[in-house]
């Protein structure tokens, strides 16, 4: 077992970091927070660099970099609190289309995504906050050569802006995935704590789409679960990146801020908080990378690993937001300081796609069923 990035992966990490340092500096996240930008230029830039294609599997018309490479990109997006449709499009919409439609059809459907021309998202949750397809009650029925949908979807990331929404609904009791044009729904955008990641409540009532927008054949519960494993691992990677940024800001602050004639980092109450943040981040880091590795290899541990990554990133953000904000003192409580940009990204990451506690309990149930750690 070789549990460290290869030289190529380390090179990619440096390149991604350099690009985002230039293209997504804190000023961009701040402009988004101030309502002065929607981050559209960044998506244009990333599309120009073929990032959407890079992250998509070759099967889906992408360049076929693996999931470990995708995790590297996502972690850096989190570190920069980068705005834009990359995450929902590449880690939510694309996997669900791929899993539900199968590689052949997906390659056609996703070619515009790979080219950066189309953005997408998924509509799964109906208010429980767990993204469990078993809880789906929204429906569709056939009406001639059309489908008519009904029901309400919650927490649809980019629900007000995505070009395409992959909606998980029931057809004759079976879980199915239907592609709904963003223009055909009336989303109600929720006032976001992080304007770089917006979600909406989307009513599907009365939406009519051509019947060929129904993906695949047969029940899509398993397909949806598999796709969501990718979405969950992706949010974990982003949250990890946001935590790392919070930590870097605070670790540097503790060396520079002088009180009582010494850097505050010489106080043991401060040191121990930093050590615990570091521990939780490293714990989350290896679990995120492990999830990426299991997804890359389609290893049977992927279900467990995705939940462990999400829960560990959740535990890390809990400590980093709490202690990071506390150790910054008054300056961290100001709008002018960059810290809050990352605190927001970390908190969104906790609450989207199932909380840490939800995923911990899943991990425990999987363990009790499988009979081994």
């Amino acid at each position, binding site marked *: 077992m070789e549990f*460290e990035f*290869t030289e190529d992966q380390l090179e990619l990490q440096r390149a991604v970091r350099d690009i985002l340092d230039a293209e997504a500096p804190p000023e961009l996240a701040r402009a988004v927070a101030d309502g002065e930008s929607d981050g559209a230029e960044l998506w244009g830039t990333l599309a120009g660099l073929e990032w959407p294609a890079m992250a998509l599997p070759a099967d889906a018309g992408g360049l076929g970099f693996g999931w470990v490479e995708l995790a590297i990109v996502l972690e850096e997006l989190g570190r920069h609190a980068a705005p834009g449709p990359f995450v929902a499009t590449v880690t939510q919409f694309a996997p669900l289309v791929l899993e539900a439609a199968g590689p052949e059809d997906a390659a056609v459907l996703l070619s515009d995504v790979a080219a950066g021309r189309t953005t997408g998202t998924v509509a799964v949750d109906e208010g429980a906050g767990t993204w469990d397809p078993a809880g789906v009650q929204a429906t569709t029925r056939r009406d001639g050569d059309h489908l008519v949908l009904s029901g309400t979807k919650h927490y649809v990331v980019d629900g007000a802006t995505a070009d395409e929404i992959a909606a998980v609904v029931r057809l004759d009791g079976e879980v199915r995935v239907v592609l709904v044009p963003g223009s055909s729904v009336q989303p109600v955008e929720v006032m976001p704590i992080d304007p770089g990641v917006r979600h909406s409540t989307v009513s599907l009532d009365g939406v009519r789409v051509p019947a060929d927008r129904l993906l695949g054949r047969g029940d899509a519960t398993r397909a949806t679960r598999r796709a969501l494993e990718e979405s969950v691992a992706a949010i974990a990677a982003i949250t990890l990146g946001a935590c790392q940024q919070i930590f870097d800001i605070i670790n540097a602050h503790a060396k520079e801020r002088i009180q009582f004639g010494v850097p505050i980092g*010489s106080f043991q109450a401060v040191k121990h908080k930093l*050590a615990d943040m570091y521990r939780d981040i490293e714990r989350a880091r*290896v*679990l995120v990378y492990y999830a990426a590795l299991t997804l890359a290899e389609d290893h049977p541990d992927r279900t467990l690993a995705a939940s462990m990554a999400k829960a560990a990133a959740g535990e890390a953000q809990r400590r980093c937001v709490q202690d990071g904000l506390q150790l910054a003192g008054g300056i961290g409580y100001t709008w002018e300081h960059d810290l809050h940009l990352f605190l927001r990204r970390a908190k969104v990451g906790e609450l989207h796609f199932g909380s840490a*506690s939800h995923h*911990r309990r899943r991990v425990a149930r999987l363990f009790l069923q499988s009979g081994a750690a």
Partner: protein
Amino acid sequence: MRLTYSPEVEAFRAEFSAWLDANLPDEAATAVRPRSSADIPEWSRSFQRRMFDDGWLVPGYPPEFGGRNADLYEQAVFWEELGRRRITQSFNPQGLGIVSASIITFGTGEQKHRWAVPIMRAERTAALGMSEPGAGSDLAGLSTRAVLDGDRFIVNGQKVWTSGAHHADVLLAFVRTDPDVPKHKGISALIIETDTPGLVRRPFRDITRPDPDFNEVFFDDVEVPRENLVGELNDGWRVCTGSLAHEREMLWILWSQGLDRMLDDMLEQLNDGAGAGAAGDPVVLDGLGSSIMDSWALRLLGQRQLARSRRGLHVADQSLLKLLGSEAQQKLSLLMLEALGPAGLDRTVPPDAQSPYESDRAALSWADRYFFTFAGTISGGTSEIHRNIIAERVLGQPR
């Protein structure tokens, strides 16, 4: 990154596994149990000797020291096999892991053959004399005094907590040889035979077991030959901090295995034993999930350390792994104790829960196990000291 070992490493595992099949002592022979961490029953001594002679005791060492120059991944699968079969590498862990390792790293050729090899072959046993009544976390503040007088040292003072000393043939003792220089610079390491006149051991009990393991060791004009000095005079701090160099990348495995051992037992009890009722409790599930993550994270962080070390990179996560491992065991045993309710107070040990080849403390009541986890968070540097080390040496905060 990949998830599996190379075929060569798996072949190494298979070879060791076959060796164990052929050489593990008969269960019937294991009835005599060790009474302390330096008390090795005869059956275990002969097994440890066989491991040494066949190069399976410390595979990373050269053959003359009981190994076969195994690389780090081979060493890792060696530990995995021991853990999977619940075999303790040695019933004198300080003797093998610290005392003989220190002598091999810092001692003379003569010292290696006189002490290190016999300790490794379980012909002799050893205890570690670091801590004193006035020097625990502040180990460098130790005051047991050794005065060089011709070709011998005269030692006076006291050690405490010296695990297994009452059954040990020798001590590796850290003593003050120069009181007039900064504290780290006046320490030396001495091998002291425990039957030397003037050396008195007083064993005392800890909170987990009836047989004592702790000792106070008193030195009253104890004469120690100069040739028993390990490393240079006044260079004992280097011996103290460097003694684990050989196994530094491997120490996490013991934390990881201890934790997995607990998870195995927990799984059994939650699925059909005393804890079946707790298995549906969301609070228990929530805590259990976090412990399972600890176990995976420990294993993955340990593997990352091996990978980095093999690439010749600086490895800096020993404190992180020790902190995570020892506290994870504490967290899990407390969870299980509380999940079981009053049943967690039961001290009776199901007779089949334990392998005869492992230390007797592996299978205790959850209350005893919880108490025992404090041996992990207190010895080998307390959790607080490791947090200091992480903040200062890894994160660069001022001292």
